[in-house]
């Protein structure tokens, strides 16, 4: 309970900050299939958003639009003041400021943990190797895995790999972190170690958008919970209100399905 209050107090201060991520009337189609329908969302600096919804509801697609791993076809997406268009320079700029953690980690298997972490800082930010390695070790310590720095990803457990993936993103010192179902591919006993790292990150004031079904995590750290279904944002509320008094029937149905099993 203390933790929740602590996080909430910083959140209130943060939500007054400038918008870090803005989506205005975003639409997207896969061929003829309309995946995102008129999505509008504004995320302030330091805000932590949890996005949930049934599979196929477009939640992953939406956050992948924020670093343009998916292209939107209508509407505007502005990240840290830069609008995402087909301009490659802008896209690379946004991507270097936005970290993403994938469901399947996507570490580079031919590089050691440390090399995974310093690759982008060295080649995108032009950080000298020494400084990049030093920073990487700090982040690896933060995700509690510094002793694995010289190993290859294939030698680590799923939970360890996901923590390395988080550290790798943090090494770019991103302004926003996206999480695309970061615990869905993990064995149950490894979920907590990853969530602990994410909670720690939330406490440090990172702007976060998390697609996850970990409702405990949502209750602990989220400022807002967003429920999506059929490509639309159905409901959006503070966690307590969202879980205790869902407004929409589809939200109620979804919550009853994931909470009462």
């Amino acid at each position, binding site marked *: 309970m203390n933790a929740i209050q602590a996080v909430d107090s910083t959140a209130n201060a943060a939500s007054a900050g400038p918008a870090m991520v803005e989506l205005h009337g975003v639409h997207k189609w896969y061929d003829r299939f309309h995946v995102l329908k008129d999505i509008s969302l504004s995320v302030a600096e330091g805000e932590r958003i949890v996005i949930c919804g049934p599979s196929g509801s477009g939640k992953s697609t939406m956050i992948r639009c924020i670093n343009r791993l998916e292209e939107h076809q209508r509407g505007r997406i502005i990240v840290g003041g830069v609008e995402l268009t087909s301009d490659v320079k802008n896209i690379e700029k946004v991507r270097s400021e936005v970290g993403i953690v994938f469901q399947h980690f996507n570490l580079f298997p031919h590089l050691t943990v440390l090399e995974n972490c310093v690759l982008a800082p060295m080649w995108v930010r032009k950080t000298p190797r020494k400084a990049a390695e030093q920073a990487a070790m700090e982040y690896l310590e933060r995700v509690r895995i510094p002793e694995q720095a010289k190993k290859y990803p294939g030698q680590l457990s799923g939970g360890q790999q996901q923590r390395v993936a988080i550290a790798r993103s943090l090494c*770019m010192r991103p302004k926003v972190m996206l999480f695309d179902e970061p615990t869905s591919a993990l064995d149950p006993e490894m979920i907590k170690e990853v969530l602990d790292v994410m909670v720690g990150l939330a406490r440090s004031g990172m702007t976060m958008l998390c697609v996850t079904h970990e409702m405990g995590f949502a209750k602990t750290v989220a400022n807002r919970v967003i429920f999506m279904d059929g490509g639309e944002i159905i409901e959006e509320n503070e966690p307590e209100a969202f879980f205790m008094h869902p407004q929409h029937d589809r939200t109620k149905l979804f919550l009853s399905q994931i909470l009462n099993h």
Partner: protein
Amino acid sequence: MTTHRQRHADLPPPSAPMGGLGWLRKNLFASPQDGALTLLALYLLYLVVPPLVEWALIKADWRGTRSETCSRAGACWAFIHVHLNQFMYGFYPVAQQWRVNLAIALLGALIVPLLFKRFALKRWQGAVLLLVYPVVAFYLLVGGRFGLSHVETSKWGGLTLTLVIAIVGMVAALPLGILLALGRRATNMPVLKTLCVAFIELVRGVPLITVLFMSSVMLPFFLPEGLNFDKLLRALIGVALFASAYMAEVVRGGLQGIPKGQFEAAAALGLGFWKSTALVILPQALKLVIPGIVNTFIGLFKDTSLVLIIGLFDLLGSIQAANADANWLGFSTEGYVFAGCIYWVFCFSMSRYSQWLEKKLQTGHKR
């Protein structure tokens, strides 16, 4: 009821009853069919090996300067011995052959450490090998500068020529093939993609002989009067382009084996196309297709023997020329066996190296 037990101790695996007889039983005589096949194979070996050894070693004549010294009861290796210089250097002037030796020794000194070890200056040595060495080797072999006499490429021959064509072909085919493969996958650049597909399919669709013949005989007709570049150079271009088309398809196979998540993770970190290709995708893709790359290299190495048809005397060509030597008629078997052994040594070394490299680059224990 509780089922608590003490923790079970780790036991060693059951030992296999091996030893000589056990091994024979397991590997050669496990069933009646196995036994029959083993005996059949032994019989075939008995038929082939002793006569071969007798011909090649026991009854062979090793020394001699004239064909009459050979008894013809076994192999006449004197034939090889007498023509060895021609087989190695073609008609490269004897007094200048040290230049070929030096070029090869330099190559060996530069490349061997690169192939096997990790060391601090590796990047620099690689750069020297790729940028400085070709210039040095060019002037060493061709001459005409720095006090070295000019040796026309029409005098090059034998193993020297085979190595020149094979090495230039390999060094050119790999990067060209990579570019072609990337071009073929560039779905957002339809013109580039079409050009790459057209090139690959055109070149793969014709035999190497045709490419060599075209480059040697047809090309001069299309060039303006007086512009006539070296026959060897034309063959080199032909071989390199031919091999690059095959290489492109091998590399494309590797690129397709890389999961989409790797491309996404690299892009999401802000790496642009060339950086993510060079740092993340290609190292994995090339590792995946080492067997295919080496396969293409081995094919290329042996394909060099086709330059004979445009009048270049590579290893095989110079052996055929020696077969026509009026003083040494009737020893073509020895010549071809010798050529076969040399080709085999080079190809087998490449094959073993690729296996070693695959093992060395193994980093992920797939779960």
